[in-house]
């Protein structure tokens, strides 16, 4: 199991979702990825994408103007 980071700052949704989707496609079950975004909409959309596609959110929070979401790959 490995931990990765993904910089999705300065892109508007759905680009952070697309970047997350494409990153997760490269990862293995159990891996985690920490996604950093500046579009606050990502705080809703990335978890929605994860629910639909069966991945879990380990943590999500706002950090100043940034949004950070940690995802665990489940399938």
């Amino acid at each position, binding site marked *: 199991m490995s931990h990765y980071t993904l910089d999705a700052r300065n892109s508007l*949704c*759905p680009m952070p*979702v697309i970047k997350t*989707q494409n990153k997760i496609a490269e990862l293995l079950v159990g891996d985690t990825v920490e996604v950093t975004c500046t579009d*606050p909409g990502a705080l809703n959309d990335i978890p929605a994408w994860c629910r639909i596609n069966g991945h879990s959110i380990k943590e999500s929070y706002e950090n100043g103007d940034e949004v950070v979401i940690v995802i665990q790959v489940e399938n």
Partner: protein
Amino acid sequence: MSQQPKSKQKRAVALISGGLDSLLAAKLMLDQGIHVEGINFYTGFCVEGHTHAIRKKDKAKPKRNNALWSAEQLGIKLHIIDIIDEYKDVLINPKHGYGANMNPCLDCKIFMVSKAKQWMEENGFDFIITGEVMGQRPMSQRKDLLPVVVRESGADDRLLRPLCAKNLAATLPEREGWVNREDLKDFSGRNRKPQMALAAEYKFEDYATPAGGCCFLTDENYSKKLVDLWQARNKKDYELDDIMLLKVGRHLRPQPHYKLIVSREDGENKFLKGYKKQFSTIEIKSHNGPLTLVDGKLSDEEFRFASRIAARFSQGRDAESVTIKVTRQNGEELSFDISPMPVSEIKQEWYI
């Protein structure tokens, strides 16, 4: 609901726009026991709540991606696909031309269905479904143009339109009995009451409103900005950042060789800050005011002129003088005081 044995279960890829029609079309297929997965194409021109949410005034609106919301309602997977680069050719050279604005709706539909066909083949799916309704839209859903989409996309009879299938010739999924044609719909025209009734039947609430539109290219003001961009550059081309910036701020072109993008409020200020390394900028230092991106190369004198315009939109608009900081794209800084331009001197034709 009719259930198909898993081994024989047919698989459909649904074009999910986030609107009501594609939601209903996919639901009709799920009800027939079809395995459905959604596909949503991102062209860069899609209207998303988040683009609007840059602006404070829209913060109260729910921030959601409607395609994801639709997929969640349906309980299906959704694959969001970036087609920004490939879409350029559709927009720049539309074989079937533009609609009322810069919207190449028919070419767009053909392109998306052809991409869905490619996805279907690569992923072992059996057919494609869309939420098209015959006669609903003037360009891409006219009765005489629906066969054009079928033919030019290459999808042929693997393209099923569940909401208006009964008005059309039977497709492969119907002929082969993968779906029951009798359970499909015969919607047509611009009246949306049948869709709304079906939505109520399925207890779908809070779906995206049909009048909202899903593409900035159908917007007159946005289209004008795009045409201006092409004219100023003397070529029809763009990058994602170009088309994102057309959605944000006031756009003024005081001279043919430069354009100002003046933020309208704090949310836009924050967004435009992300572009400070790509553009020269004008900031108002003595008063609260907008961040202005400058697209073009300006002399010092032109920067002073442009700064007077930018200052007009600051809280120092009525002051005798405001302090300005210009940062050129190469990082060089200039600082000076100017008097804001009176509103009477800001020409309407500068606004794009």
